[in-house]
């Protein structure tokens, strides 16, 4: 409940969504991201939703909005921690969150963000 903590790890922001997010919290999160995206050179935002046992259309829209915002800033959003039951519900309700990349774990999410930005910047790394 309340503010969503955002941590900066190098060029990635990690936001851990809390339970019981309300309209105000979602807006506050987006505003906080705007401030942080402005302040430093950010390549990606990792959105951790592992605490959520339910994602309704409101939260789905918030996630999509964040992804769009981040994309306009030239960075990538990666969603981690969607629980199996939540995934099934999202699919049943037709909320597929297209346009948002996902990863199984925060580690892989971070690695994915690095690969995506490296690819964009034309750098090639061995092993990828």
């Amino acid at each position, binding site marked *: 409940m309340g503010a969503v903590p955002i941590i900066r790890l190098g060029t990635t922001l990690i936001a851990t969504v809390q339970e019981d997010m309300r309209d105000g919290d979602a807006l506050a999160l987006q505003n906080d991201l705007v401030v942080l995206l402005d302040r430093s050179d950010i390549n990606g935002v990792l959105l951790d939703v592992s605490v959520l046992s339910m994602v309704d259309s409101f939260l789905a829209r918030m996630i999509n909005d964040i992804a769009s915002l981040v994309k306009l800033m030239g960075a990538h959003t990666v969603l981690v921690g969607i629980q199996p039951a939540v995934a099934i519900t999202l699919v049943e309700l037709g909320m*597929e969150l297209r346009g948002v990349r*996902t*990863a199984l774990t925060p580690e892989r999410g971070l690695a994915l963000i690095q690969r995506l930005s490296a690819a964009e910047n034309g750098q090639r790394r061995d092993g990828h």
Partner: protein
Amino acid sequence: MTNRETPESIVSNLDERSLLIKQQRQTISELETPVIQVWDGILAAPIVGGLDTARAQQLNESLLERVVASGSEIVILDITGVPVVDTSVAKHLLETVTAARLLGAEVLIVGLSPRTALTLVHLGLDLSGVTTRATMARGLQLAFARLGLEVVRRNGLAGLPPGADGLSV
């Protein structure tokens, strides 16, 4: 000698039987949708028989739980044993693909016959987001590639002789 069942014993038998049927249905259901860890990070789920809503739901639940538990990013769904792939079956498969994608895993569908492929094309379904291969072998090959793995032949030797377990030096 006649053996008349009393009303009470008839009801009791029915209860036992419906319990047995329920248990058997559960067992059949579990047997029909096994999920196999074929490699680190790669799960395989062979589907044999029809794929109705109930089985699709069971498949999704067990599959997604295994994805998270094993940390597998690739799932190979083998539909070689599915005799009829119609709109409803295709939709179930698409749901599995989408749900797994939300978790961060990719689903490869293999075992598609050319006949089935043509049917799907004619049905006009949007399968652009789905990766498919004709066989499990090709699916595995792609899965390895996705994970940055390569299978190479050992230099010199023709491989292990039959009976060797490859564990002792």
